[in-house]
């Protein structure tokens, strides 16, 4: 199988006036993977996707889709991809069904059976004029027209913003199906459960830079494990053990964070304290993100923040 990356950017820079929206972005997405693209508002997610679509031109650095230049080769590349923005605008006097057909035909042939099946699954009435659609329904139109098309790459920019939880389930099924068909997906999202469920690998963007990339388990390795332990003897002495952070005791239960590489020493220090119950859980995606762009992360870096769009 061809292992050349589907998306590869090297040192990508894009400025809008004084704002550095992308500041040396390095993103790599391999064939057949669902790649989660996470970051706070204004971190540069949409700008990255619009550069990948050839709607914006990078100031410096390189971006490649299937080994081609997204600016120069936009048209041939667009035969191989479909895009769903986070805020879908449609033509008010066209129906949802007409809009789906238009996008599908511009991309190539339309599979009517598949289209009707998707309309059914997403519970969309295709005879309504787009002006009467809610945000969620407009989002469905863009999703259906992307999913109905026979493409290799899906660029999804917060694709389920405005969808209800039932539709969220349908969306996740559809992406899982796309993955089994070997499609590559770049999924920018704020719904962490969605990313945890779907993504093979994750890239975290902050102020126009990728600050972390890897599979969820790889990322977890870099972050502390949370432990809740109930002991018969006081645990105050643990605070001095290397690798223990944020020790707090409440109602006889001690909460602490442990560096993964110091796990052994901490467990040995715990053993003589009379452990009565112990819960350990790996870092959640939320904790990973807060580590990268929470208030503490901002203290570390004083880089100017980029802006979406």
């Amino acid at each position, binding site marked *: 199988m061809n292992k050349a990356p589907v998306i590869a950017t090297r040192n990508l820079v894009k400025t*809008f006036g004084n704002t550095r929206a992308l500041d040396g972005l390095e993103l790599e997405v391999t064939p057949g993977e669902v790649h989660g693209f996470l970051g706070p508002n204004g971190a540069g997610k949409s700008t990255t996707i*619009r550069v990948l*679509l*050839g*709607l*914006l*031109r990078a100031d410096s650095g390189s971006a490649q889709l299937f080994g081609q230049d997204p600016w120069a080769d*936009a*048209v*041939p590349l*667009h*035969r191989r*991809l*479909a*895009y769903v*923005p986070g*805020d*879908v*605008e*449609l*033509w*008010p*006097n*066209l*129906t949802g*069904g*007409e*809009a*789906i*057909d*238009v*996008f599908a*035909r*511009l*991309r*190539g042939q339309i599979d*009517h059976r598949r289209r009707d099946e998707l309309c059914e699954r997403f519970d969309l009435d*295709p*005879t*309504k*004029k787009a*002006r*009467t659609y809610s945000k969620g329904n407009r989002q469905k139109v*863009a999703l259906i027209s992307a999913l109905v098309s026979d493409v290799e790459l899906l*660029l999804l920019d917060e694709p389920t913003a405005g969808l209800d939880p039932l539709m969220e389930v349908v969306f996740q099924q559809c992406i899982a199906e796309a993955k089994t068909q070997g499609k590559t997906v770049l999924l920018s999202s704020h719904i962490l459960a969605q990313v945890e469920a779907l993504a093979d690998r994750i890239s975290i963007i902050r102020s126009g830079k990728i600050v972390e990339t890897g599979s969820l388990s790889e990322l977890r390795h870099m972050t502390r494990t949370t432990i809740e332990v109930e002991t018969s003897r006081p645990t105050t002495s643990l605070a001095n053990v290397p690798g223990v952070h944020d020790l707090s005791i409440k109602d006889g239960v001690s909460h602490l964070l442990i560096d993964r590489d110091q796990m052994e020493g901490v467990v040995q220090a715990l053993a003589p304290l009379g452990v009565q119950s112990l819960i350990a859980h790996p870092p959640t995606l939320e904790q990973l993100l807060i580590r990268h762009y929470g208030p503490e992360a901002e203290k570390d870096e004083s880089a100017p923040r980029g802006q979406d*769009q």
Partner: protein
Amino acid sequence: MTATLANAPVRDRSLRAPLTGLGTLVAFFLRRDRIRLPAWIAGLSLYILYIGSALPAIAPDRETLKSMVTLFAEPVGRMFTGPAFGMDAPSYERFFASYYAPYLFILVALMNIFLITRHTRAEEQSGRAELIRSNVTGRYAPLTASLVVAVISNFLAGTAVSLVSVAVDFPVAGSVLVGAGTALTGLAFAGIAAVTAQLSEFSRTASGLAGIVLGASFVLRAMGDMAAMGGSALSWVSPLGWPAQTAPYVLNRWAPLALSLLLALVTVTAAYVLQSLRDFGASLIAVRPGSARARPSLGSPFGLAARIQRTSFFGWGAGLIALGLVDGAFMQALLDAGEDMPAALQEILGSEELVSGYLAFLGLFISVLITAYTLSAMQTARGEELQGRADLVLATPVSRTSWLGSHAAAVAVGAILMNLAVGVGTGIAAGVVTGQASLIGDSIAAHAGLLPAILVLLALWVVLFGYAPRLLAPVGWAVIGFVAVLAIFSDLLDLPRWLVQFSPFAHLAALPQESFNFTPVTILLVLAALGGVAGLFGIRQREINVT
């Protein structure tokens, strides 16, 4: 019933609440318009200033002025200007009031249509008004604030008109009347736009409906004033007829303006009633379900562009064909009037010359309006880009060039069809009333002969779109204004030759009055093609929707 009673205190409170936040909104709207409104008022003032100082230069003595007046007091002249009061003893100010002030009233009407639509329906359509209305704001505060801003703007515009008129040495009483006419006509159209803003969910349709009322007012006044010197019954039906009927500097009548004020009050009341009948963001016209599948024609960039442009094409087309039919049907009245002309003038014009001159003028008038259509249609394409819909199309295998090219091609086809259709319509109307079938061919020639100029200006819009999209609207409308002023007043304003030459219309033969000239047609068509190509090259180079 108990519920009604229980609700009574709430209802009582809501009687005071509808205007909450009015002051803040007025200040906010004025802040948003801090460049636009002063620019409009400055534009109106400059218009008078120019005419006030140009007239003595064009007609330095009484004799020249009198000869100019004879031409424009004729039915065709009255049709496009006004009722021609006091032309037995013409003076500069009377000439101004008869021939130039009517356009002042049209301009101020446009200012108000744009102003009201911008602050009411356009805000609602975009969803911004939802943020305002969900705040501590009364239900009627946005509409009321828009109208307050309109009152302020019209008062300032009227004052500026009066002051500048006095400054160019026109008598005070008449100048105050022209200013009052300007302000009250503006207010009447603010009221009309406030009503149309309630009728459609779309700001374009809302301002379009108000534009149709303005167009109908123009046609009614034209017919009324053409029928008799000083106007006839039809002139008194038109909101544009009332300020002209004040006869400034001649009779100085204030009474007709009472009608303008009355119309403003009636329409504003109607707007409040209509708004109370509808939900926020909704219109009074219901939306029907449509087709679940797209027709095959929609599956290409051109098909999609044509569909997007369709509504406004039919709107403009229907309006212009109606105007053409009315203009054409006046051919017989024109010929009858020609026979009553003084013998000396008949010699100059002759019935042959009168007919062809009239047709040539109609062709020019309509073609300038079609040019305005092409700009408005290219702004629709720009709206596609700004609202993010172009992103979705350009994310499919459609190139930037083919996207813009499709829109430009759809607009070009639309403009050509419109031009020919109006030419045929005007010709048939003229042919039917006069019994001369040859007028159909003449009319088509008068219109179609100007197509190269329309296409050159369309190419200019494409160039602006490709290289400097933000300049499309301001530069585009300035060019339209320039071309329109030249078309209507070119002979009267005595503009320098080098300036006139900037209008592509000035280079083409005025068919059927002049004979066909192949050279300018070729040059303009080549320029249009080059401009189109250059514009498409421009969009290849630039990014899409960068804020």
